[in-house]
Each structure stands twice: as structure tokens, then as C-alpha cells.
């Protein structure tokens, strides 16, 4: 639908703008700094905080004007406003002054200090002198579980927390109670927050009411952390994250904006799952099994050279890749052992399923939707997969999709989509159709127009009946089951009525028939002139990437090993005991003389290694992974190379060099392996073409990982020496381990942290996009590997 732009006048200048957005959104998109609290681009407007006041003039002759809240103001042709009128300045300062009557002056000991939206808005408003001389109101705080710290005295009652938690994310156990100036945001009784999206409260809260308890354990101010752009490895949704580090340990994860994927938010697994990187169980040195004592011992470099030579040279080697390792690491292993000796490290059943899924995705008529596209769809069928468990952010996207009918309905009544409370009031329980066919209940069940909880065999049958109905073919198997037939009729009817239905399925239940049924429905809709898309949720963060490479399954490998052919086994970041039966795995370890494991944590597999090499986690390495959508995205190390911990591909590259088994394979830098990989797999060539390589410079500069206010560089090691050490180098990326570098808005793949003058909080994120909640500036991160069809 084409938008007819309107002309408005802000502070005497004319602008052509989109009338579908509210005035605050419009002003922010144009770069005006208008303070706000209760507004959030993803949550819409409710007009509670009164901070975003502007002056509106009736016409060119009106000199007096009147104060309006820009978040609640529609943008109409000829609108004349002032963002800096003296009355506005007085009013905004007054709003801050009244909020400060109860807000404690505890910024120095507050975790939010230095990245606090309230601090920023206070400075922006100009309020600085305190006239209130009475006592402040105080509250009791609640224990909200291991992740979120609660400090209610700091609350400024913007209502964003409950609007995110309940309205946006569907949570039930956080609510507002009380009234007047005793409003309380918490649970009815103390206890861990139940929502899988509770961590977003940390970023949604404009001040220090909800803060990151895991950060508190090893607290560091925002400006003292080193950051790197990264991709969440907890599932296959491909959410973009920012990793914060100090003194060699990861301190926290924040959401990194990707307008096509996770937007402003993350699930709790993604946000808090980082703690393992700091685990005492980490493998730090090169370990070799002492045959006498049968224990793994750290070994010197010289010792390593000899054991690795004897394990590799002249030996029959097989390599096991991993769906949680990067494309580059998997490729390095594949190249070292040879394509015919490379195995994917997943069992035969999953391997087979992934091949089927890829066939579906490669089909020219199929479109794999981004999370944003799922949010915009007008009908959703979930077939045999619980996204709330396998990829929670996809479930959150479905929750937003369920609102589309109500937003359209509101538009008919003249209510704009941003008028959040009014849209929800009008909609009541009206939702876009969401059908959920899963073996068990899901946390999305409250959205379902129809639920079908049955074994996957039934779900596959339901799917095939639906596609038969759409294709007007008489279903073969449903004749006897009337209720299944009725359900299928209803779902097929709705999908056919929808404009852009989405089918969500996945590999969760290992049922190929479900996958095929979902594909058949998509194909049938396509034949019938619809624009369907199919989201296949893969089990792990790089399952799809690995599946797109050559190689066999773990079951194939077991056969080869049992035939007694393999002498040395190299296992890349993979705990085989989680992939296959214990007896089987035990038997292959017995068969292979040399087991080389590259991993970051001790687990049942790495404990069996004869040679154990310390791999870097996502925080200590750089790599590319492919999300379920088919989006290739790169994560960058936040920790400089330290000791023996290295990217897995570097360990492999070193092995090749030491042993001299191949003269052709030589990768010095990350760019080298990417080049070698994409030459070998042209399907992935876009990764090399689009994601900036290490030579990339922005305005002749690297992009800084450290904030411009990074204060600790000279002080950090002052107990040892006051001289300033040279910052570590990074030949693998265009990012610097330093505060030196480009300070503006870099390409979206390379955004380390969000900051803009006057915007120290996460709200600075909005300065990094075309418009709030729009695309990241210069396009959203990542490259789409499958041809995009709409």
C-alpha cells in the first residue's frame, strides 16, 4: 500500500512525513531529541508520562499555541509544531521535577547509572534545582528470581514494564497494583518471573527498577565494558546480541537491534545464557592424556607438536563437525580431513530431516520468513513444533501477528495502530487466526483460535488433509476421522482467506511427515495464488548452515569406525553423548586410537579426549552462522586472544601447518578461511560479498569496541604498571580492541554498542535506524542465503 506523505512544519522547517505514525515517532525519526518515557517504538503510545510535550499551533497566525503530547498526536497535513517553545521547556522540566520528588538520588550506587534513560531525559529537560523539601515515598522490593533485581523506589511509573510483560509478551505474573502515588509494579507475591522474556524488563525500564542480576554479580558500568556485535547461539532464531566484557570475563548480553529479526528484544535464554563462558569448567590449556595415569594433563608447546604429529601424520582421520560451531570452523575441519571423511555430528534421523528441510527451503516457490514477516502475517499455522521452546523469539513474533486483525479493525474505526491502549480496548479478545497443532500444550495456547494436541503422526495427517483440501484433492486418509476433517476444513478455509499466511514447523519431534505436510500446505497455498511462507525451526544455532555443507551423519561415521577404518577422530565442539546412545559412543572412542577434541567446556566427550584443544566460545572467536530463516550472520570476538584459547578454525589451521598434511590449505586470517570456504561452497558466496571483511574501514577507521568514555584503560592495571599497554590487535575483523575508531553509526553488522550524544541508555538504539522500529541504518544485519520471494 502506498503511503501518501503529508507536509508538516517543525520549528519553522517543512518536512514531508508519513501520516501513519504519531508525531513523537515522526520527530524522533527526523532526528529531533524529544524526551519521552512511556512511549516505546514497539509498544506504541499511551500518553501517561507527559514528557514528550510539544506546542501545537492551530494555523500560521496562531502565536500562542497549546501543549500537546506528541506521542498521542496524529500527524496531519499542515500540522505546525514547536519542539522548543519556552512553555514546553518549562513543562518538560516540571515533569522531571515531579518525577524527582520520589526518585531517590542514588545514581552513584544504582546499576542503571550512566545508561539511565531517566538521567538522559533529566539532562535533556534542563531540570536541575530541587524545590521539593518533603519526604520521599518508599516501597519494599521483591525477589523476582535469579535474573532480575527489583528496586521499586526508583520507579517513575511509566508503565512500560507491565505493557511489555503483559500486553506485548503475554506474561501474567507481573502487574501494576495500587493507585495514586502508591502505584506498585511487581508480582502478587515474591518469586521468579515466569515469562521467558522477563529479561527485556532490564532494557524496557527507563531507570533502575529492573536491573540485570547476573551483571550485578560482576558489575561494571556501561562505559567500562568492551563490546562486540554477536549472534545468539542458544537457538536457531539468529537474534542479534551485544556482548559486554571487562577484565577477561563476559559481563552481560544486551539486545542488538535487527529490524528483521529480534527487533529490540531477546529471550531470557539468549540474555542470561552467557554465564557458561565464565565457568571454572572452561578448558584453558592444551591437554593431553597421560597414558600411564589415564588423566588429561596440560602440555607444553613442544610436547603438543610431537603428539599432534604422531596423531595426524599418516593416519586415517575422520572429522565430526557441529551445528553449534561456525561455518568457518566446520569448513576448516572438512578441508583438513577431506570432504569424504567429514561428518555432521548429528544422528542419522536428524540428518535426514535436515536434508528434507533444505530441499523444502531450496524449492523456488517457498519463502522463509523473517521474524518481522511473521509478525506481519495475518494467519499462522503452527504444525508440530513449539516455538516457545525451540525458538522463543519466534513465539513472540507469533504473539504480535495475532494482533493484526485488531489493528486493521481499529483502523476502520479511525484508531491508528500506535494508539496502543485504544487498539487493545477495541479488539478485546479478537485476534488474527493462530492454529496450534502440537503434541503438548504451549505458552502460545492463549492465542490459539484452535488447538490440536495429538501425536505428531496425527499432526502430519492433519497437515496433509489441509493441503488436500486447499488443492481440492480428495484426502486419502481422513475419511474415517470426521473431527480431524472438520478441523482441517476450518484451517484450510482461514489460510485460503489470508493474504500472507505463515506455516511454522520444525525438527523438534523428529517427524519427517510433519515437515512434508507443512511443505505441502505451503505449496498448495502457492498453487492457489497465495503468498504463503514457511518457517522451519532448526534445532541449533548453525544447524542450517552445517546442513548446507557436504558430509555424512554420525550414524554413517559409526559404521565406518566399526569397520575399523578410522585411527584418529577429530571432534569439533560437539558432545557426542548428547547425540547418540552412550554405548555406541563409548565403542567408537575405544576403536579410535587418537581422539582430538576441540571444545570450550569439559563434558563427557571432551573428558574422553586424548588431545584436548581449548576452543573459544562465541565471546572469544569470530564466525558466521546461519539462522533458521536462512540468514547468515557474523559474531565477533569480544575477548582478545588470550593464551591457548583460540577460534577452532585457528587450532585446525595450526594442526595442518604443524603436521604439514596439506600444502594447499593455509589460513592466516579470518578472511582467508572465509575466502577458502566460499570458493569451496559458492552457495555461501554472499557471505563474503556482503558481510564486511577485516580490511573494511569506515571513513578510514576501524570500528571501536570500547565506548568513547572508556575510563579504565590506563587505570585497570595500575597496581602493576601505570604505563599504557598497546591495545590488542584484531586481524580478523574491522573492529578495534580500543576506544579509538569510528564513533558514529557504523554498518549494522558492526555495531558494538549504542550511544549517541545525550542518549546514554539503550534508547540510543533508535539513533541507529532509519526510523524507530524500522530497519537498521544501511540495512538490517546479515545476508539472506535463499532467494527471497515475496
Amino acid at each position, binding site marked *: 500500500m502506498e503511503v501518501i506523505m503529508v507536509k508538516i512544519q517543525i520549528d519553522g522547517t517543512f518536512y514531508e512525513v508519513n501520516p501513519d505514525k504519531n508525531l513523537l515517532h515522526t520527530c524522533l525519526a527526523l532526528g529531533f531529541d524529544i524526551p519521552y518515557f512511556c512511549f516505546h517504538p514497539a509498544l506504541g503510545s499511551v500518553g501517561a508520562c*507527559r514528557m514528550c510535550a510539544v506546542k501545537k499551533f492551530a494555523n500560521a497566525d496562531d502565536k500562542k499555541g497549546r501543549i500537546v503530547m506528541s506521542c498521542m498526536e496524529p500527524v496531519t497535513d499542515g500540522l505546525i509544531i514547536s519542539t522548543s517553545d519556552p512553555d514546553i521547556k518549562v513543562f518538560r522540566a516540571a515533569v522531571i521535577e*515531579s518525577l524527582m520528588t520520589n526518585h531517590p538520588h542514588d545514581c552513584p550506587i544504582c546499576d542503571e547509572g550512566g545508561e539511565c534513560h531517566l538521567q538522559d531525559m533529566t539532562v535533556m529537560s534542563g531540570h536541575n534545582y530541587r524545590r521539593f523539601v518533603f519526604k520521599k515515598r518508599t516501597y519494599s522490593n521483591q525477589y523476582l528470581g535469579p535474573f532480575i533485581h527489583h528496586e521499586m523506589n526508583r520507579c517513575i511509573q511509566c508503565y512500560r514494564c507491565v505493557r511489555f510483560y503483559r500486553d506485548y509478551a503475554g506474561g501474567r505474573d507481573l502487574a*501494576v497494583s495500587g493507585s495514586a502515588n502508591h502505584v506498585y509494579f511487581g508480582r502478587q507475591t515474591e518469586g521468579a518471573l515466569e515469562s521467558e522474556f522477563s529479561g527485556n524488563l532490564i532494557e524496557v525500564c527507563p531507570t533502575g527498577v529492573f536491573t540485570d542480576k547476573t551483571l550485578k554479580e560482576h558489575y561494571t558500568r556501561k562505559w567500562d565494558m568492551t563490546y562486540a556485535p554477536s549472534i545468539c547461539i542458544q537457538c536457531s532464531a539468529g537474534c542479534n546480541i551485544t556482548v559486554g566484557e571487562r577484565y577477561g570475563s563476559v559481563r552481560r548480553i544486551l539486545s542488538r537491534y535487527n529490524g528483521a529479526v529480534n527487533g529490540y528484544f531477546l529471550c531470557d535464554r539468549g540474555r542470561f545464557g552467557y554465564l557458561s563462558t565464565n565457568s571454572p569448567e572452561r578448558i584453558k590449556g592444551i591437554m593431553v592424556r597421560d597414558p600411564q595415569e589415564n588423566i588429561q594433563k596440560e602440555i607444553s608447546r613442544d610436547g603438543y607438536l610431537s603428539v599432534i604429529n604422531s596423531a595426524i601424520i599418516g593416519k586415517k582421520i575422520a572429522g565430526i563437525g557441529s551445528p553449534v560451531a561456525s561455518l568457518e570452523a566446520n569448513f576448516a575441519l572438512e578441508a583438513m580431513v577431506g570432504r569424504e571423511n567429514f561428518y555432521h555430528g548429528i544422528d542419522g534421523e536428524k540428518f535426514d530431516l535436515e536434508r528434507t528441510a533444505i530441499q523444502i527451503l531450496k524449492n523456488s516457490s517457498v519463502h522463509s520468513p523473517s521474524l518481522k514477516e511473521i509478525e506481519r502475517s495475518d494467519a499462522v499455522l503452527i504444525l508440530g513444533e513449539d516455538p516457545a521452546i525451540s525458538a522463543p523469539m519466534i513465539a513472540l513474533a507469533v504473539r504480535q501477528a495475532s494482533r493484526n486483525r485488531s489493528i486493521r479493525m481499529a483502523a476502520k474505526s479511525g*484508531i491508528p495502530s500506535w494508539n496502543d491502549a*485504544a487498539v487493545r480496548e477495541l479488539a478485546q479478545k*479478537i485476534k488474527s487466526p493462530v492454529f496450534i497443532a502440537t503434541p503438548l500444550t504451549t505458552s502460545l495456547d492463549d492465542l490459539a483460535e484452535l488447538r490440536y494436541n495429538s501425536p505428531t503422526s496425527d499432526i502430519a495427517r492433519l497437515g496433509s488433509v489441509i493441503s488436500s483440501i486447499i488443492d481440492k484433492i480428495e484426502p486419502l486418509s481422513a475419511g474415517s476421522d470426521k473431527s480431524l476433517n472438520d478441523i482441517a476444513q476450518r484451517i484450510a478455509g482461514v489460510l485460503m482467506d489470508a493474504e500472507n499466511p505463515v506455516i511454522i514447523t520444525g525438527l523438534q519431534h523428529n517427524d519427517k511427515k510433519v515437515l512434508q505436510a507443512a511443505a505441502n500446505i505451503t505449496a498448495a497455498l502457492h498453487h492457489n495464488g497465495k503468498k504463503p511462507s514457511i518457517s522451519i525451526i532448526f534445532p541449533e544455532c548453525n544447524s542450517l548452515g552445517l546442513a548446507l555443507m557436504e558430509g555424512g551423519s554420525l550414524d554413517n561415521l559409526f559404521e565406518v569406525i566399526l569397520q575399523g577404518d578410522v585411527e584418529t577422530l577429530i571432534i569439533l565442539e560437539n558432545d557426542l553423548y548428547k547425540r547418540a546412545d552412550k554405548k555406541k559412543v563409548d565403542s567408537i572412542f575405544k576403536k579410535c586410537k587418537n581422539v582430538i577434541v576441540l571444545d570450550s567446556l569439559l563434558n563427557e566427550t571432551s573428558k574422553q579426549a586424548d588431545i584436548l584443544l581449548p576452543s573459544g566460545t562465541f565471546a572469544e572467536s569470530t564466525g558466521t552462522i546461519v539462522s533458521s530463516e536462512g540468514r547468515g550472520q557474523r559474531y565477533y570476538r569480544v575477548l582478545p586472544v588470550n593464551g591457548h584459547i583460540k577460534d577452532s578454525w585457528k587450532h585446525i589451521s595450526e594442526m595442518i601447518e604443524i603436521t604439514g598434511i596439506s600444502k594447499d590449505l593455509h589460513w592466516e586470517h579470518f578472511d582467508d578461511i572465509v575466502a577458502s570456504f566460499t570458493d569451496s561452497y559458492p552457495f555461501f558466496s554472499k557471505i563474503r560479498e556482503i558481510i564486511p571483511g577485516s580490511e573494511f574501514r569506515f571513513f578510514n577507521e576501524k570500528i571501536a569496541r570500547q565506548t568513547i568514555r572508556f575510563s579504565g584503560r590506563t587505570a585497570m592495571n595500575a597496581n602493576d604498571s601505570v604505563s599504557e599497554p598497546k591495545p590488542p590487535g584484531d586481524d580478523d575483523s574491522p573492529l578495534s580492541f580500543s576506544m579509538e575508531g569510528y564513533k558514529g553509526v557504523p554498518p549494522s553488522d558492526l555495531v558494538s554498542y549504542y550511544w549517541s550524544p545525550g542518549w546514554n541508555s539503550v534508547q540510543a538504539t533508535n539513533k541507529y535506524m532509519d526510523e524507530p522500529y524500522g530497519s537498521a541504518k544501511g540495512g538490517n544485519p546479515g545476508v539472506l542465503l535463499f532467494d527471497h520471494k515475496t
Partner: protein
Amino acid sequence: METPLTQYIKPDRLPPGIEDYKKAGGYSGTIKAIKEMSPSDIKTLVKSSGLSGRGGAGFPTGVKWELVPVDANGNGYKYLVANADEMEPGTFKDRYLLEGNPHQLLAGMIIASYAIGAQKAYIFLRWAYKKAEAIIRKAIAEAYDAGYLGNNILGTGYDLDIYIHSSAGRYICGEETALLNSLEGKRGIPRTKPPFPAISGLFGQPTAVNNVETLCWISHIIEKGADWFRKLSLTGEGGTKLYGVSGRVRNPGLWELPMGTTMREIIYDHAGGMLEGYKLKGVIPGGVSTDFMIESQLDTKMDFASVRAAGSRLGTGTMIVLDDKTCPVAFIHSMIKFFAQESCGWCTPCREGLPWVEKILASFENGTAKYDDIEILEFHTQYMAPGNTFCAHAPGAMEPLQSGLRYFREEFVRHINEKHCPWR
């Protein structure tokens, strides 16, 4: 002088039952409306009568009904809500009508519902009106038995159910959109307008919310016409009005008088003037969220336009008289304390501003106020001006304060100079 609204109300007697009410001609307007008139005829008639909302805002009732669209959203119902949440301090006019003649309200509600096409109607009643609740429940039951409510009313095919809901007791729920939220079981917080309740009201459906006194007029207007209604008034605004007076007057009470009766006549002729030894210092004309008026304004005609012209608002038309032996600061403090407590807590100026004002006024009363505090109070009257807050609650609270600061500034200063309340 005609007193249509209160003619059958005898405060010392039980309200008329349905038989008595019918004998006196009650429900004849209702029968005429739903049997002989189309909804648009009714809306046109009410609009031409000039009946305006008696809850305090004075919005034309017929216009409000015309804003309700023909169709409900989806498969829902349209709704009529009688706002009987009379929590305005000093106001007790609706109570008089509810307890004195419940069928008059029901008769009006049936017509109003029919006019807007509502199939469900609610009476949202102040929590404390227990007696009224019992009386209305009985009247509703009688109306069902008599065929005025339920399915196929009087054989016309029109269906209507009326329910009564007793509020949990929050002042803000008298605000029509907070009322609707409360009625839905949500937090009693006002909604943004637009959309107005006519478009998206109760349960997101087209809804008209009318004050009790307004609804009590409808059957009379149907029966006797718009001209008759207009001629009851002394000014351009039709009808009679329930006026009340409280404070240190000889005969506090409530009277139905022609719209536009002067304040002087109401206070001196009907309420008997000030008690011996007390002088009139000021008058809050219509519930506490209206500006003070003073003695020189006593000849103001008590209708919406005249009181507005005098710098205040008619509001509910129930006056509170301030005398010279009551501290005006304490008087205002008491009101602000009420408003601060009854804020819903949604928007910043109201939630944070009113408690600050309350604390400053308390400091005047305990003798610790400073000269700067007057400035801070005046600042707040600007800060919480209409448009700056989410709803009219805080601006209403500022009305007696801003006019109090204007008329009684000397008394404020005396508190500071003498370091205690001069009235204590």
C-alpha cells in the same frame, strides 16, 4: 413552578413502586418512544430540546447519542451506561433521584438505549449508595415483570437488559472512560480520547454514558416535548436543575429550580442564608472541582454558560459555601488531599503534582510554609492545566486552588507570617 424530576419524591416515604408510578403517568413516555417513534426521531427530539449533560460537563445529550454508530463492532452489543457514581464532594443530587424515584431513571434508560440501539445497559452506582442499590434492584425486577425490560419489550421486538454494578469506590471512576474500564474489571484509569466511548466504549463497543439526572429527563421530554422543556428554564439552557447547598447556611438542602436561577436566590431564599454569626466568604458552585466564586458574583445565573462567563463552572450545581470562620487554606487543603488520594496514578503531573501540593498546603496549616511556597502552588496550577494531564482530574483539582490563591491570598500569607493557622 413545575418540578418534573422531583414531583413524586417524598424524602420521608418509600419511592413509588411501578404501579404507583404508572398510575401517575410514568412509563407513558417510554411506551410512546419505543412504540411510536424511531430512534432517530428520539435523537432529534432530545437534541432540539437542548438537554445537556447534568454530570457537570454540559455536553448536549442528543449529540452524544448521534455519535453512536448504527452498528456494533463485530458481533457485540452496543451499550448504555448510567453514571450513578456520584462521588463529587458536596454533591448528592443523583442520590436523591435514585432513592426517590428509580423508575424515572429506568424509563429514561429504556428510551435512551432504544435511541442508540443498545441491548444492554448498566447502572454504575457509587459504592456507598447501598440504599439506592436495594431500591434500584427492586425497581429493575418490577420493570422486568411488567414487560418493560427483557426480550421483546411491550411486543415491539426490542430487547434490553439493565444491570446494576456497585463501584469499588474510586472517585476517578466517575470519569466516563475510567468508569468503563472499571466496569470491564480493569484498573480504573481513564482512557485516551479519541476514540470516544461512542466509537469504542464498554468492551470496545459503541457506548453512551449519561448522568442519572440527564437520563431522568428523557421520558418527560418524550412525553411533553422540546418546547415544554426549554420553557422550564429562565435562560437559553432548557429544563430545571437540581441545585444543592451545603456549608454553614440555615437550611442546607437540595431543590429543583428552573435552570438559570441565581446563586443568590438559591443560597438566600432556598437555603435560608448564612447561619447567625457567619459571613459568606466564597462559594464552590458545583462540586469541589470548580473555581471559587465570591460574594460579588452571587447574582450569577446558575447555568453552564453564565457560570463559565463568571470564571468558574456550573459542574453538578451543588454548592459548597465557605464562611469566614473556616480557614480557606484548610478548606482547600482538605479538597486537594482528596484529589491526591483519588488520583489513579496514570499520568505524571497528577500522580506526583497533587501530593506535592497537598504537602505544601499541610505546611501552611502547620505553620512551616515559606513565601516561595505560594509561587510553587501557583506553578502547579499552570503545570496541571487542562491538556497537560491525561484527564480532567488534576485540572479540576487546580480550579479551587487557583481561584483560592486569587481570592484568599492574604489568608495564605497570614499563615506564613504568623507561622500557624490563624483560624486555630
